[in-house]
């Protein structure tokens, strides 16, 4: 070999080693220790717990299935396992060969006396995870928060986090960093949930008894998730108690729950069955009301361990809501999902999960007065394979693929009366295929600097099997200069697409990167960038998400939403993690954000393209979170100062667009969002909880004048979303009483008294304008959903 080629070869080798860590150059051998962390009491795997080698900076966090893998140079170490709410476990190990070590941690809440965190672990290896803009909520924290009508609500509990708001009562969905409700990917054990609430937003679809924990990614979405631009809410169900049979439940004012769990196949598996149902309909009938509403859900999970390296999980969820308004209006809707997952550990460094998921959301509407019957649904099948390679102490690699096949069934409308303003239509079924492949690396560059970088390549095909309208000049709507409004144009023809045709194809690269720099033992700064694409959209032109809102795929008329999010954060722990402070600033922009023309009518509309205009949105803000993590009083204060706005020019339709093409507030803009939650353990028997929320009112469009015509007052309206509803605020309190129980008694009960909206503030859900029937004077009417609502629940565990 010539000197040149030799040096090139050496360069290649050096570069390769440099890329994959210093470790590989050392003469010392590295060995791997791996295993699974579980709860000693019930065998549940622990997600997100810390495993590290004492005295070093080598450590890792367990994944969603409780798996960890640590690679280090040969030697003797003390391995520390630590998780909030559990007692730390220390193990001396001799790392002279690859080994497996499964550990059980004991929950501190099961102890009768407060257990002090041992003073022996001063040098906690603070994991410099570059993860930012993430909130992880323990279900136990959620359960301590005051509830409305006796139901612990996972979605409502998210609202006390910074950067998360909701529209108030009577409104489903939540908003993350000024984003729309459909921009959140909500997963229950990896299955997509389309509507996160029961009864139009009063309760969430998650039965807290079945939930293990939840993680909300507000930004910096890891490359393994795709499909939504604002956030990912990853909810994991409990696996089921592997040690003992247990019963948990609660009896409340409006609904009750019961969950049963236990071991299956000896100690090789477990199951969980949880159900919840309201008896609101029964109560209303007894009260003589002709209107009823009710809901129920069922959560199922079973798992089986096939040897040391394989585990199978089967999960399911089924929930339903029913409304009946004097027999003339009937509505029923709900989510159903099922998935089968296979965890396979290839070797002590490579963990994989294969999932096959089915998800369905459907709704049905029956209105006698219009003699209208409407059925609609969205259904998907998802196959995904995720792998995680714990290459070395400094480098971890995630990679995988996913493909989702969608069937959108916007429904069939059958009117019977001729005066119905609805045309009889079978709305076209739409089909699409969304796929993604990703690779992501978590790379410890130095003792203080960790980086995470990855890329997701997503692909969306809108398939045929329907026909699409063709418009002159490709303009489904056109601006009329004289009438000053956007008018729908009649199609000039139709194009038929066979099932094997593709109406449109989209492809996007979504890079994600983050960097964390440890300033000292107690503080770090992080910065991140992520790009995300969203191919399906929830069309909703009202302030409140209703079951009538339609999911629509991108295609000929709707482009995928594309977002860029930049974030910078400062994180600090005080007094040995007793207090923590997180501050983040973010900026997010979204391309192809659609908005609806004035007077748009989405219901029963087969041609949504005639109601929408294409635009962009942006949001930016400062989030502040101060937490007290330990002691009898725990909780946090969160404050967000932000802005969320959008701009919708006329585009191909011509004209000035919405609001003359200037920026205007999105309906999710809340300038100030302040929330506080606290839990106080008064004594062994009593604990108290409180939530306080204050939010700037929702943007609305108010009338700016009126004139009389044909004997009635006609309002003229101001700029879109330029006004605001009055500020939303409330205080909730709760008190929990646990009667003294003997440790040998299996039955544990507690009474929870909760008062929602203690000072009875009538928060405006909407303000509407019209004439008083008697006087003819114009007046404003505020609709408020809940005043003060007390509730009493009895929870039990057996």
């Amino acid at each position, binding site marked *: 070999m010539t000197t040149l080629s030799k040096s090139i070869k050496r360069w290649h080798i050096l570069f390769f080693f440099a890329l994959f860590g210093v470790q590989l150059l050392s003469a010392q051998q590295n060995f791997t220790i791996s295993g699974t962390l579980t709860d000693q009491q019930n065998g549940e795997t622990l997600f997100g717990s810390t495993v590290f080698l004492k005295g070093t900076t080598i450590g890792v966090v367990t994944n969603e299935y409780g798996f960890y893998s640590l690679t280090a140079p040969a030697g003797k170490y003390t391995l520390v396992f630590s998780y909030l709410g559990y007692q730390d476990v220390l193990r001396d190990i001799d790392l002279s060969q690859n080994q497996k070590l499964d550990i059980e941690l004991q929950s501190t809440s099961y102890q009768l006396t407060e257990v002090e965190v041992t003073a022996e672990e001063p040098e906690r290896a603070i994991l410099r995870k570059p993860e930012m803009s993430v909130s992880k909520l323990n279900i136990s924290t959620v359960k301590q928060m005051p509830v409305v009508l006796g139901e612990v609500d996972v979605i409502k509990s998210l609202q006390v986090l910074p950067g998360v708001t909701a529209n108030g009562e*009577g409104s489903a969905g939540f908003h993350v960093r000024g984003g729309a409700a459909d921009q959140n990917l909500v997963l229950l054990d990896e299955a997509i949930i389309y509507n996160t609430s029961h*009864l*139009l937003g*009063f309760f969430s679809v998650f039965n807290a008894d079945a939930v293990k924990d939840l993680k909300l990614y507000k930004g910096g979405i890891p490359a393994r998730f795709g499909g939504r631009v604002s956030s990912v809410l990853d909810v994991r169900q409990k696996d089921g108690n592997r040690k003992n049979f247990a019963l948990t439940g609660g009896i409340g004012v409006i609904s009750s729950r019961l969950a049963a769990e236990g071991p299956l196949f000896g100690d090789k598996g477990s199951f969980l069955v949880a159900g919840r149902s309201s008896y*609101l309909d029964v109560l*209303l009938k007894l009260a003589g009301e002709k209107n009823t*509403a009710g809901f129920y859900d069922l959560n199922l999970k079973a798992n089986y361990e096939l040897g040391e390296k394989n585990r199978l999980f089967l999960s399911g969820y089924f929930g339903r809501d029913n409304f009946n*308004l004097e027999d003339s209006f009937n509505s029923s809707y709900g989510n159903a999902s099922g998935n089968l997952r296979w965890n396979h550990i290839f070797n002590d460094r490579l963990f994989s999960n294969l999932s096959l998921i089915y998800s369905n959301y459907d709704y049905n509407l029956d*209105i006698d*007065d219009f003699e209208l019957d409407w059925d609609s649904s969205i259904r998907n099948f998802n196959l995904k394979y995720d792998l995680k390679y714990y290459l070395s102490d400094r480098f971890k690699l995630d990679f995988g693929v996913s493909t989702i096949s969608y069937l959108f069934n916007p429904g069939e409308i059958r009117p019977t009366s*001729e005066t119905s*303003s609805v045309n009889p239509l079978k709305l076209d079924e739409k089909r699409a295929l969304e796929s993604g492949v990703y690779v992501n690396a978590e790379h410890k560059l130095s003792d203080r600097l960790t980086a995470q970088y990855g890329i997701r390549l997503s692909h969306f095909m809108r398939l045929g099997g329907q026909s699409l309208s063709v418009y002159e000049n490709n303009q489904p709507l056109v601006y009329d200069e*004289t*009438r*000053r*409004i956007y008018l729908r144009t009649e199609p000039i023809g139709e194009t038929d697409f066979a099932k094997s045709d593709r109406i449109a194809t989209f492809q996007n690269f979504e890079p994600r990167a983050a960097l964390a720099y440890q300033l000292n033992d107690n503080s770090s700064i992080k910065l991140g960038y992520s790009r995300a694409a969203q191919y399906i959209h929830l069309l909703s032109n*009202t302030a409140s998400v*209703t079951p*009538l809102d339609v999911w629509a795929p991108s295609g000929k008329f709707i482009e995928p939403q594309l977002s860029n999010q930049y974030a910078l954060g400062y994180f600090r722990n005080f007094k040995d993690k007793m207090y923590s402070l997180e501050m983040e600033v973010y900026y997010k922009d979204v391309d192809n954000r659609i908005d*609806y023309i*004035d*007077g*748009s*009518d989405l*219901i*029963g509309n087969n041609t949504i393209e005639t109601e929408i205009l294409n635009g962009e949105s942006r949001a930016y803000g400062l989030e502040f979170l101060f937490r007290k993590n330990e002691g009898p009083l725990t909780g946090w204060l969160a404050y967000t100062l932000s802005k969320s706005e959008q701009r919708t020019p006329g585009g191909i339709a011509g004209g000035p667009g919405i609001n003359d093409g200037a920026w205007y507030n999105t309906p999710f803009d809340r300038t100030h969002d302040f929330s506080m939650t606290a839990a106080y353990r008064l004594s062994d028997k009593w604990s108290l909880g409180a939530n306080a929320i204050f939010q700037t009112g929702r943007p609305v469009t*108010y009338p*700016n*004048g*009126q*004139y*009389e*015509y*044909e*004997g*009635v007052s*006609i*309002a*003229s*309206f*101001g700029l*879109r979303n*330029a*006004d605001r509803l009055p500020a939303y605020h409330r205080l909730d309190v709760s008190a929990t009483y646990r009667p003294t129980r003997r440790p040998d008694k299996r039955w544990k009960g507690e009474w929870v008294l909760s008062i929602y909206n203690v000072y009875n503030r009538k928060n405006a*859900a*909407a303000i*509407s*304008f019209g*004439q008083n*029937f*008697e*006087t003819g004077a114009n007046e*404003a*009417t*505020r*609709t*408020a*959903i*809940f*005043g003060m609502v007390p509730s009493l629940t009895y929870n039990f565990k057996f």
Partner: protein
Amino acid sequence: MKTVHLYIALACISLLGACTDVIEVDVPEAPIRLVVEASLDWEQGTTGNEQSIQLRTSTPYFQNQDNPPVSGASVEVVNLDTGETFIFTEGTPGNYSIDTFVPILGNRYQLDILYNGERYRATETLFPVSPFTEISQSTEEGEDDVLEVNVSFQDPETMANWYYLRFQARGDLLPELYYIEDEFIDGNEFSIFYEKIEDEDQNIQEFQPGDVVDIQFYGISEDYYNYLQLLIDQFDSAGEPFSATPVPLVGNCINLDNPDNIAYGYFRVTEKTSAAYTFN
């Protein structure tokens, strides 16, 4: 279909004990504009010579009980087919009338207004209306056991027709308005009913025997139909909590000198028929 949203809202509100209160709200104020109520309606069986046009201005939203009239404007209507000009003269403030108007079916009329140095113009065509074939009462339609009045008319076949139907119970301040097109009913006899449903909050009473309801029925142009559709939908959904953003209503009176200074209201020329029905 906006009423479907009303049902959802009703469902959620009535079921969970939500409450509504009238409150004070600050609303923005737009510039004051001219309002043209130029409705030249030729009642079947009359000469249609007497017509009047009202001009007023818009007001801030909560001051709708003032109705500032517009005086000193010049108002005239020209029949574009015959060339005849009709000059309206102001009587009481804001009220411009004539007693020599000549309505001819199918003719095109143009309205010209000069106000504040600006000219406004609108054009419309006189469309015919079909007389009522039957007016009766019943209790079976809509809510059971609630009195309603039914009106029927015969739509002429092959011709495209649009209608405006107005019910007002005598003594009530607010009417019930309908816009009808013949797309699905061409050539058929068509019936529509009007009942009042009791509402304690708003003090609305059902019809009782002895109540009188005034019914007016107009044959209108397609343009006016489009305008009315937006106006009536907005009027119907006023007070509804969760509705989409309403459309700005720009009538057919164009400001020739300053297009941005729009005029509200509409210039219409219609044939009409009316009746008064007393419940027994």
